């Protein structure tokens, strides 16, 4: 096997055994390459959700084949309160807590979707945990605030996942949690149910920043949450932090970063605060994967946007890159750093363009060929999966099948987000060569020759300016 000085090589002794296949996917991702898996029995696939009309004219290259998922994402759309910068599908207030809570109906519904999606995979690829349909390598409970679910609910979900999809030994099972004492949930119970990894939305260690962001926790809560997770036996722990916050200077950002490091997490996701307008992008329609932005949040974003600064953001990123490298961390993706062996296998599946299944409102799945999503609205989701009469059916949503050229672009754009980059041969293709040459000349890309492998990856400056290259590749 080729030695790649990236994920595979750096995972170290504690790397789980199933890390190995991760390395191949980017390399074979170009659409015309034969998929590694053999085709399953020619069982009729369930009809995909209605395809977007934009689907391209017949392409010269054959479309990629459908493959079974290696990962499963489950979206839990509840929070105690909604943060004004957040674009995820979230319901808060009485929907999330109290007598009129929709959490129980949602659990019923998502379990019903789980069965339907699994039925589809059974038909396409046969039973789970077989060679034609290997057990999942990762499960991710995202949100929202999935830690608001009780341990019993998580246990019930995991049980059905294992039964219908299979979960490989040492699979990565992540739950997202908020650090506040009333939000972090029953960490020991989650661990007992099979959760192996916790991701805390710390965001900042400055009280004023947390308040401006609408977060409910205090800086000290993060340390308590981390301690609780460790006590519960969680061995892989992530903290999310935000930079380019309104009013944030380099000193404060450095201080948040240091405070996070002092808690000895295993993984850090550092995001520039990104204030989008999903409605303007046309994503908030009845079949869209986003909810409409509330007017208050819209106003908040306008104000905050005026307070953001490209130079400050770049400096914050550079500061983090240096400080984390000095501490022995590896920035294995544009916004993600890990201690050896703690790279998120689930998220790597996205960047390696491997197939993943998805459940819950607004969730996206990819089967190696088509990307599909559930519509964001919870009422429509519940109505489909918990109908007043008749059997549950799949919720509304949309789908898109990138043509082979688009698939190739996705492979290179996603692959370049990783520090292991992409095979140099991919960049030599005629359609990419000019852009790659331009990026090399401008110091955005560097060549990484080690042993037999010859790869291209973004320089630190190139990471910050990656869209300049990506927009030339599409």
């Amino acid at each position, binding site marked *: 096997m080729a030695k790649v000085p990236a994920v595979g090589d750096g995972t170290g002794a504690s790397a789980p055994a199933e890390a190995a296949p991760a390395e191949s996917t980017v390399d074979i991702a170009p659409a015309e390459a034969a998929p590694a898996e053999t085709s399953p029995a020619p069982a009729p696939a369930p009809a995909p959700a209605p395809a977007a009309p934009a689907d391209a004219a017949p392409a010269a290259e054959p479309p990629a084949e459908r493959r079974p998922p290696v990962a499963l*994402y489950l979206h839990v759309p509840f929070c105690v309160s909604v943060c004004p910068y957040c674009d995820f599908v979230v319901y808060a207030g009485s929907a999330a807590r109290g007598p009129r809570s929709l959490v129980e109906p949602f659990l019923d519904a998502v379990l019903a979707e789980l069965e339907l999606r699994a039925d589809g995979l059974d038909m396409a690829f046969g039973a789970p945990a077989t060679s034609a349909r290997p057990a999942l390598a990762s499960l991710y409970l995202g949100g929202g605030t999935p830690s608001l679910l009780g341990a019993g609910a998580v246990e019930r979900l995991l049980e059905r996942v294992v039964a219908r999809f299979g979960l490989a030994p040492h699979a990565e099972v992540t739950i997202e949690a908020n650090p506040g004492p009333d939000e972090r949930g029953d960490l020991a119970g989650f661990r007992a149910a099979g959760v192996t990894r916790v991701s805390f939305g710390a965001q900042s260690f400055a009280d004023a920043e947390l308040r401006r962001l609408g977060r409910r926790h205090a800086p000290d809560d993060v340390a308590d949450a981390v301690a609780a997770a460790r006590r519960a036996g969680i061995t892989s722990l992530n903290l999310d932090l935000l930079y380019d916050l309104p009013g944030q200077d380099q000193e404060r950002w450095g201080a948040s970063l240091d405070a996070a490091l002092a808690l000895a997490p295993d993984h850090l996701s550092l*995001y*520039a605060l*990104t204030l989008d307008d999903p409605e303007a*992008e046309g*994503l908030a329609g009845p079949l869209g*994967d986003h909810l409409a932005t509330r007017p208050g949040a819209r106003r908040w974003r306008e104000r905050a946007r005026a307070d953001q600064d*490209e*130079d400050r*953001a*770049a*400096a914050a*990123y550079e500061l983090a890159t240096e400080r984390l490298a000095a501490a022995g961390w590896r920035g294995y993706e*544009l*916004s993600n750093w890990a201690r050896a062996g703690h790279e998120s296998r689930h*998220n790597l599946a*996205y*960047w390696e363009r491997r197939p*993943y299944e*998805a459940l819950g409102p*607004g*969730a*996206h*799945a*990819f089967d190696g060929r088509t*990307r599909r*999503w559930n519509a964001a609205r919870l009422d429509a989701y519940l109505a489909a999966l918990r109908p007043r009469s008749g059997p549950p059916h799949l919720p509304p949503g949309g789908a*898109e099948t*990138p043509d082979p050229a*688009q698939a190739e*672009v*996705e492979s290179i*754009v*996603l692959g370049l*987000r990783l520090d292991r980059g992409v095979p140099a041969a991919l960049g030599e293709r005629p359609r990419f060569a000019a852009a790659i040459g331009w990026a090399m000349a*401008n110091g*955005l890309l560097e060549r990484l020759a080690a042993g037999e492998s010859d790869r291209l990856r973004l320089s630190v400056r190139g*990471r*910050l*300016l*990656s*869209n*300049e290259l*990506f*927009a*030339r*590749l*599409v």
Partner: protein
Amino acid sequence: MTIPQDRLRNFSIIAHIDHGKSTLADRFLELTHTIDPRQMTSQVLDSMDLEREKGITIKARAVRLEYTAADGLRYGLDLIDTPGHVDFSYEVSRSLQACEGAVLVVDATQGIEAQTLANVYLALRQNLVIIPVVNKIDLPSARPDVVIEELESVLAIPREEVLLASAKDGTGVPEILQAIVDRVPPPKGDPEAPLQALIFDSHYDPYKGVVVYVRLDQGTLHGHDRILLMASGVDSELLELGVFRPQLVPVERLAAGEVGYVATGLKSVRDARVGDTVTSHARPAAHALPGYQPAKSLVFAGIYPISGPDYPALRDALEKLHLNDASFSFEPESSVALGFGFRLGFLGLLHMEIVQERLEREFGLDLIASAPSVAYRVVLSHDRGIVEVDNPSQMPNAGEIEEIREPWVKLSVVSPAAYIGSLMELATGHRGSFQQMEYLDPQRVLLTFELPLAEVIVDLYDQLKSRTQGYASMDYEEIGERAADLVKVDVLVNGEPVDALSVIVHRERAQVTGRDLVHRLRRLIPRQLFEVPIQAAIGSNVIARETVAAMRKNVLAKCYGGDITRKRKLLEKQKEGKQRMKRVGSVEIPQEAFLAVLRVDEG
């Protein structure tokens, strides 16, 4: 039916904008039953949409009115309409040359305005009989006595000659027609002599070829005569001749003194230029009529399609429009910032605006114009001659220039006296010098200044209007050229000059202009991967500089399972944006940036 020569009258109506010229023409058409009342629209002669919208006449038109006068006889009155704006005084003088009389319309509420004067002087220069009419006497604010007083004191028009009318309600209009019959002499010219007919306008008809509008000075033209165009030497079998009613109505013959049209069948307007003389091929006249000075372009600008592939369509449109309006000139030019386009010469700023709008409307084009410029005459050093420069980017280097001469104008402003101080300040602020002041009445003055044309075409008209709350009117005429201390200010992006943004300004103004351009451009140029200096320079001397900092971050922070489709689309959008960029050296600049710099008037 032919009308004898002694019962023909050729006349124009001259007026300041909005004084009621077109409405009066409408009444003439009604009173003489020239137009079926059911087909009567307002401003019949202004048939272009633009003319109706702007309330101005852009193009001269002619119409034959048949009027039964007090003596019971039928007269043929040929009305040649004239544009009212200063830009078109050339066209006015052409129309007047075909007339023996002019109806001068003055608004009873406004009095004499700058163009009233200009047009009267044009008419007097051609020895026309002037029939003064004070119009709009139906309005409560009308003050005909004051206006009559003004006409007498300023233009020496005897008060007893002045007619009072309301073109709107028709009061006094028959008296004007009668006055035309009584006061305007019939055309002279021997119908038996060899044909001499002056072309005063033309249009192109896809079926009839070039249709020329003529006034016959002498001789007679019959249908199916073979004609000769004396200046171009081209001869042709004429397809049709006729009169304007106001649509083209064929007739058997046109005789000396008459105004009409001739369908030449010629395919190129170049063969039948305005000012040429039409004569008979069989029996040509000994010499041509004096003709006209060709229209002189005073204002120049680059006109570019906003999307490059429209260039051939623009070329096509210019050629077609030119058939209808020979008073603008065009030749191809190209610009780093704006791509391929044309350099156009115009009679003035309004003319420029009108040509651009007609190109956009009538040909469906989306255009951008560079900043207007005048034509400079540049005396090169070491006796290497004189060059004419109407595009700032073509100005020779400072070292090669002995002297730059620029056109000057005499500016006449009619304004309420209260604004004298402000107008003086305005003129001197535009390098003007005060010449003279004359009171039209106790409240209104006529001010004359001399100033460079370049100063007039920037924003003088707008400022004049805003400083006088719209009360002042202006007019200008060329008075030759003068040497000036002018410099070319170039704008450089990353060391590369951006041709479309070069301007020629007075040395004293160079700093301010340079700083302003650089500042505006800095805000419009997106950050690049490297730092980009934006400089204004005179030759190699940098007079202003700002810097666009290097781009430091363009990255998608998050890209997870739900983001991939969306982000790919976002990147595709960014790519489209990049493809629309113009490149100046290695700097990518959205065309919108240039457009914004060219469009913004920060007065």
